[in-house]
C-alpha cells in the first residue's frame, strides 16, 4: 500500500516512514495514514518501524491514537517502533500525555536506526 502522505523506504530490516504533511490533523488524512501504517505490519509483516517526524509541525490527539494502535500491533508481532526528529513542540505533546514513557523517541534517524 502506498500513500502520498508518507515516504516509505527500507534500511536493512527497518522500515523507515517519513511523514510528508506539515499538519497531521484532518480526520480523513489520519485515517489514511493509519491504514497504511497498519498494513505495513498486518499485510507486509514489517515488524521494525521507524517514524520520522521531521516535517511535522502540528498533530492532534487523533494522530496520537493511531500511533498507540500501531505500537500495540507491533508489540503483538514482537516488533519495535521508534519515533525520531520530533520538534520541541511536538515532543512536549508526548511529555504532557506521558506518551514519552510508551514510545521510544530518539533525536534523529541515525540514532533511531541504532536502537533496532
Amino acid at each position, binding site marked *: 500500500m502506498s500513500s502520498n502522505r508518507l515516504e516509505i523506504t527500507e534500511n536493512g530490516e527497518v522500515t523507515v516512514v517519513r511523514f510528508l504533511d506539515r499538519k497531521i490533523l484532518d480526520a480523513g488524512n489520519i485515517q489514511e495514514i493509519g491504514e497504511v501504517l497498519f498494513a505495513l505490519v498486518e499485510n507486509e509483516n514489517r515488524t521494525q518501524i521507524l517514524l520520522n517526524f521531521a516535517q511535522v509541525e502540528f498533530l*492532534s490527539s*487523533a494522530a*496520537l*491514537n493511531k500511533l498507540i494502535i500501531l505500537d500495540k500491533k507491533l508489540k503483538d508481532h514482537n516488533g519495535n517502533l521508534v519515533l525520531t526528529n520530533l520538534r520541541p513542540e511536538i515532543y512536549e*505533546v508526548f511529555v*504532557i500525555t506521558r506518551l514519552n514513557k510508551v514510545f521510544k523517541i530518539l533525536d534523529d534517524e541515525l540514532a533511531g536506526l541504532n536502537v533496532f
Partner: protein
Amino acid sequence: MTKESYCLWRHKESIASDLAEGSRLLNLMVEKLEAAGWASAQVFKIHLAAEEAMVNAIVHGNKSDMQKEVRTCFTLTGQTIRVEISDEGDGFCMEDIPDPTDESRLDEPNGRGVHLIKNYVTRARYNALGNQVVLEMDFK
C-alpha cells in the same frame, strides 16, 4: 480602556458539524495571532487546544450530524485570545473522563483531547452541561 484590552479581532460564526469548516476557522485564528505578534510556541498551544475542543464538539457532541451546528466566537485583545465553542450535544461530565496519564491507561488509544486542552491554555471552563467550552490564553 487600556491598550492591552482593545479588541483586535472578533469573529462569531455558527458552522455545520464539518471538521473542514472547523479547520477553516482555526486557521483564521492562527493568522490573526501571528499577525498580532504571538510567539509560535503560544500559537501552537492555543491552536492544539482549540483543535481538540472543535473535534470534541463536532465528533463527540454533535456526532458529525451536519444538521447540527457548532457555535463559535473568537475574541483577540492585546493580552488574551478567547475561544468559545458550543455544540448541540448532551454534554459530558469532567469527572467521568479518566486521567489518560494514569499508568494503567497510558496505552489506551483515546481520551487525550481534554487533557491537552487543560494543559495548554491559561484557563478552560465548561458550562454545567458540558456542551460549551471557553478557552483563554494570555499573551506572553
